[in-house]
């Protein structure tokens, strides 16, 4: 689609007697849609470039010879278009339908698209009841296509929407229109089954039933489905999804084009990962430990026990012997009520959330430099940016929909992309963002910090600096450039393998940008020195004068769907709701007035501190909500011994996870499909989550459980429904009143910037501007335990659709790296370091750099024992995603 020009120049045209005024460059079919004239079409889609291959949208345009395809004709001034009022066009459409139906089987009754099929609708409209064709229809031999996507090529109308979507939007190019003419057939590669991102886009965009979802195949007819608009519960992108349910069963997920932050695009997790809520292992009753066994009990008994135990611990050891941990997958309302319960009822600030695993690095950096805890950019700014810098994102796998915004900016709008990624520019079965990069700085996962410093050094050497700010804060600039000058290019080359001219070119591209967005991913946020690296990137934006420009900013990507909300709702101990500091007595007083209960002035604590205190016996009880630290953290963190030392462990969970198995009481909670609330996505946009199915068994929404517990603890904190909590939050926190189609990004606070550039930077500039020590032995390989596109945490392992794509973990290597070590695809290798050794199969992937091995974190039960554990001194973020290991092929495998 040619982007309608941003100028306000308009043209006025007449369509079927109606006058339409549209921006210049608008297509006739879009102009017609705006005045309510529906021009039938198959191949046209607003997201895709016009192809005009189906010929269904023919219209008569005065003074133009012959009929024109309205999907490829731009509206011009004074144009007179006749669509349904033109006999000629109607006749032509009838002919086109005749040709399409010459080969389309009449199998609507068994076709899953029947009832929502464009071809059906247009056949009704143009009453194609007879045909001139008497020949038998074309029949393709049925071939197995993929575990999740079903093709029935006899039904294909060859509009090529799926092929174009796969290429233009997803940049995967996994579908091939093979053959020619009517015998064109959509295939993968040869007779191989489809191997792609499984975003489901081809299923959603197919106008007929040629490509359908295998997961919901034959389970429904469209008119039986109840639709519930909600938000996806996997990554931080916050995609709008529509649950389609039938008789209280989840049938499929859709996302409507033009709605939500994702504009109708989904990834594999969103489209095929919805079976989690209906997994048979869901907890349906509270469980109480009796010896080694769990016993199912009724809610009253469980709540009474939990309430009593918490009161006992409090009376015996004080409130600070109780800690809380909540998942970033809970709704804002759940997290808010949890922290209110812990602070107001239990009387401790010792709570933490899964935002601690990395997202806090980004939020704290934003807060420290620009005074906001949200991005100062939105997805729209990414799309309209002219220069994008991606650092350690691996965005296709971590935040695929934000990745689509980057692809849109680069592919359609000509933005320049600089990537600092631990990826090779290689074509694979999933899209690879560095293929689109103009400047790619490929590093190992341990090299991000050096590469960022290299870029900063190049920026300073090229004098791409903001003169105004330099005048105001010369000491800050001098301190940075002095430290950068102390770093030698040779040392940077030694650590990254990148020469200085690469950095110089990237710095020049970066400096030329008017609208610059820097996206930071888990490669930075979750690996050692993450906070320092994020701060250095803030420095980069600041010294080049980009930070305060509209449309520019730093965008740390959240891993879990509500990591941002967990921070904003006060889910991390030292931060009160609204991102305000616990240390500020005025804030505390205001909040305790609003709550009508005192807020303890004891310090909050982080997850690593909770672990440490539990090991030392200072923490006696832990309330874990939806979090699974035993499976998230490596054994080197001491989590096992910490949990064993606890007197009382409560888990509020969907499943009996590793942590829940150690608990004394397990409370069954609802999944996101069964409750109302809001999620805050990575860009700080608050969106509504709605109930699609009934609560499974006796499970209850998290907030309801906290509320009931507060009653049991004689300090009632009662809410009638989730709306009451939402209202309380909105009244308390002005920044949460942004429910709406698009977020208003926060503006950088100039006083915060001034504070940072005058004094605050001095605190930690020395360690930040140092090259990390590189003491790797030559035969060692860097193991990165990382996010896969097909899973999200351990949670999605309960989704049967996603397990069909990826069911086990493998250690992935570059083919040449493997060949050098005498390892081939599928071999078993022994991965070892000083912490232990693990056997795992090998997979080969060209996009993984040499000297690096990756392993999906979702299957890291074994391999996480090899991961060393380190805590950030500033943000208390635990780093445990990288290890140095030896690989050895197991003989006889």
């Amino acid at each position, binding site marked *: 689609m040619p982007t309608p020009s941003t100028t306000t120049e308009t043209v006025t045209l007449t369509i079927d007697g109606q006058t339409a005024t549209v921006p210049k460059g608008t297509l006739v079919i879009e102009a017609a849609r705006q005045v309510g004239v529906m021009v039938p079409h198959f191949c046209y889609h607003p997201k895709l470039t016009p192809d005009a291959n189906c010929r269904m949208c023919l219209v008569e345009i005065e003074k133009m010879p012959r009929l024109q395809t309205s999907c490829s004709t731009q509206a011009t001034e004074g144009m007179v278009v006749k669509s349904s009022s033109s006999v000629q066009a109607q006749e032509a459409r009838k002919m086109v339908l005749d040709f399409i139906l010459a080969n389309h089987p009449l*199998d609507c009754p*068994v076709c899953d698209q029947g009832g929502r099929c464009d071809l059906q609708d247009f056949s009704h409209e143009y009453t194609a009841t007879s045909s001139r064709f008497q020949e038998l*229809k074309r029949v393709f031999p049925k071939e197995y296509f993929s575990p999740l996507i079903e093709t*029935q090529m006899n039904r294909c109308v060859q509009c090529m929407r799926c092929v174009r979507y796969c290429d233009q939007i997803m940049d995967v190019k996994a579908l091939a229109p093979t053959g020619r003419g009517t015998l064109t057939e959509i295939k993968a590669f040869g007779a191989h089954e489809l191997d792609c991102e499984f975003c489901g886009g081809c299923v959603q965009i197919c106008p007929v039933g040629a490509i359908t979802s295998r997961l919901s195949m*034959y*389970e429904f007819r469209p008119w039986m489905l109840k639709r519930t608009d909600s938000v996806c519960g996997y990554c931080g992108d916050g995609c709008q999804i529509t649950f389609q349910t039938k008789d209280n069963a989840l049938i499929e997920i859709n996302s409507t084009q033009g709605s939500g932050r994702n504009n109708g695009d989904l990834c594999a997790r969103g489209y095929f990962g919805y079976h989690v809520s209906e997994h048979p292992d869901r907890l349906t009753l509270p469980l109480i430990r009796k010896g080694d066994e769990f016993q199912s009990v009724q809610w009253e008994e469980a709540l009474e026990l939990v309430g009593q135990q918490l009161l006992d611990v409090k009376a015996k050891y004080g409130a600070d012997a109780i800690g809380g941990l909540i998942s970033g997958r809970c709704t804002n309302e759940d997290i808010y009520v949890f922290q209110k319960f812990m602070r107001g009822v239990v009387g401790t600030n010792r709570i933490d959330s899964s935002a601690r695993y990395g997202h806090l690095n980004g939020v704290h950096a934003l807060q420290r430099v620009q005074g906001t805890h949200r991005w100062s950019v939105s997805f729209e700014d990414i799309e309209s940016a002219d220069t994008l810098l991606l650092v350690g994102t691996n965005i296709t796998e971590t935040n695929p929909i934000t990745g689509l915004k980057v692809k849109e900016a680069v592919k359609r709008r000509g933005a320049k992309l600089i990537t600092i990624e631990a990826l090779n520019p290689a074509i694979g079965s999933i899209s690879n963002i560095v293929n689109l990069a103009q400047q790619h700085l490929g590093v190992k996962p341990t090299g991000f910090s050096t590469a960022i410093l290299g870029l900063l050094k190049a920026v300073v050497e090229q004098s791409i600096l903001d003169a105004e700010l330099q005048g105001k804060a010369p000491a800050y600039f001098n301190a940075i450039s002095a430290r950068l000058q102390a770093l030698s290019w040779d040392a940077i080359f030694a650590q990254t393998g990148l020469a200085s001219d690469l950095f110089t070119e990237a710095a020049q591209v970066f400096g030329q940008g008017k609208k610059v967005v820097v996206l930071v991913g888990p490669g930075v946020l979750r690996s050692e020195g993450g906070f320092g690296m994020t701060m250095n990137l803030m420095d980069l934006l600041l010294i080049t004068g980009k930070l305060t420009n509209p449309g520019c900013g730093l965008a740390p990507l959240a891993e879990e769907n509500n990591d941002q909300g967990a921070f904003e709702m006060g889910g991390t101990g030292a931060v009160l709701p609204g991102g305000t500091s616990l240390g500020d007595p005025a804030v505390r007083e205001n909040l305790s007035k609003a709550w009508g209960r005192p807020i303890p002035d004891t310090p909050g604590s982080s997850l690593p501190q909770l672990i440490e205190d539990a090991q030392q016996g200072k923490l006696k009880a832990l309330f874990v909500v939806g979090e699974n630290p035993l499976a998230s953290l490596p054994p080197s963190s001491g989590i096992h011994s910490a949990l064993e030392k606890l007197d009382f462990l409560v888990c509020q969970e969907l499943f009996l996870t590793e942590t829940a198995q150690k608990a004394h009481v397990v409370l069954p909670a609802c999944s996101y499909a069964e409750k109302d609330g809001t999620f805050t996505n990575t860009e700080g946009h608050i969106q509504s989550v709605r109930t699609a199915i009934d609560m499974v068994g006796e499970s209850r929404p998290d907030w309801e459980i906290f509320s009931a517990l507060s009653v049991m603890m004689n300090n009632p904190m009662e809410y009638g429904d989730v709306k009451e909590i939402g209202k309380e939050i909105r009244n308390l926190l002005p920044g949460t009143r942004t429910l709406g189609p698009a977020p208003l990004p926060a503006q950088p606070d100039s006083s915060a910037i001034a504070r940072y550039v005058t004094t605050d930077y001095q605190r930690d500039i020395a360690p930040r501007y140092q090259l990390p020590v590189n003491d790797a032995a030559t035969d060692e390989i860097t193991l990165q335990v990382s996010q896969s596109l097909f899973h999200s945490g351990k949670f999605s392992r309960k989704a049967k659709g996603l397990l069909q794509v990826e069911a086990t973990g493998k250690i992935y290597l570059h083919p040449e790296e493997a060949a050098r070590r005498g390892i081939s695809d599928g071999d078993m290798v022994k991965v070892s370091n000083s912490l232990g050794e693990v056997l795992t199969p090998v997979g080969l992937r060209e996009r993984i750099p040499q000297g690096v091995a990756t392993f999906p974190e979702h299957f890291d039960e074994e391999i996480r024992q090899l991961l060393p554990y380190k805590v950030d001194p500033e943000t208390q973020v635990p780093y445990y995603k990288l290890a140095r290991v030896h690989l050895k092929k197991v003989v006889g495998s």
Partner: protein
Amino acid sequence: MGSMNLKEWVKTLTFYELLLGMKATLSHLLKYKPITLQYPHEKKQLPSNYRGMLALLRYDDGTEKCVGCDLCEAACPSRVIRVVSAEVPEEPAKRYSKEYYMDMTRCLFCGLCVKACPVDALGMTQEYEWAVYDKRQLHLNKQQLLAIGDRNFPVREKRLEFQHPNVAYFNVGFKEIPQKDVE
């Protein structure tokens, strides 16, 4: 009273109105011809288009005709039918009704489901003796409905040879669609 004339007096005296009212009855008293069927012993000849008990049908080779398309369920005005369709376990991409229920207590015998069926898998039999003591017995499943079809339609439709399992159903030229009876 006093103004009553002779004619009316005679009518009153002979119960004329009564006789008039019973004229039809009395005339039949003379030429007796029984109308009432002695039902359990005698049964009525039903018209050929009688809409009785519903049944599921099979092809001549014994395979079920039903493809589980749910159109009968959509057509039914009183929500009698519930179809659970699925993929045939051994034949991928082939649709059939895994479960098929009819709640005959609700049925109006309107025949819309039969009209809606694209493969003529539903038939209306001449059965009507379906009085039961427990109305749950009128909640019929697929096996029961197939059994009703088996006993009422001994002559089965031939299965078309071009309905190969690898090929979508109805994948035929327009002229070769099996014609439904046109009214």
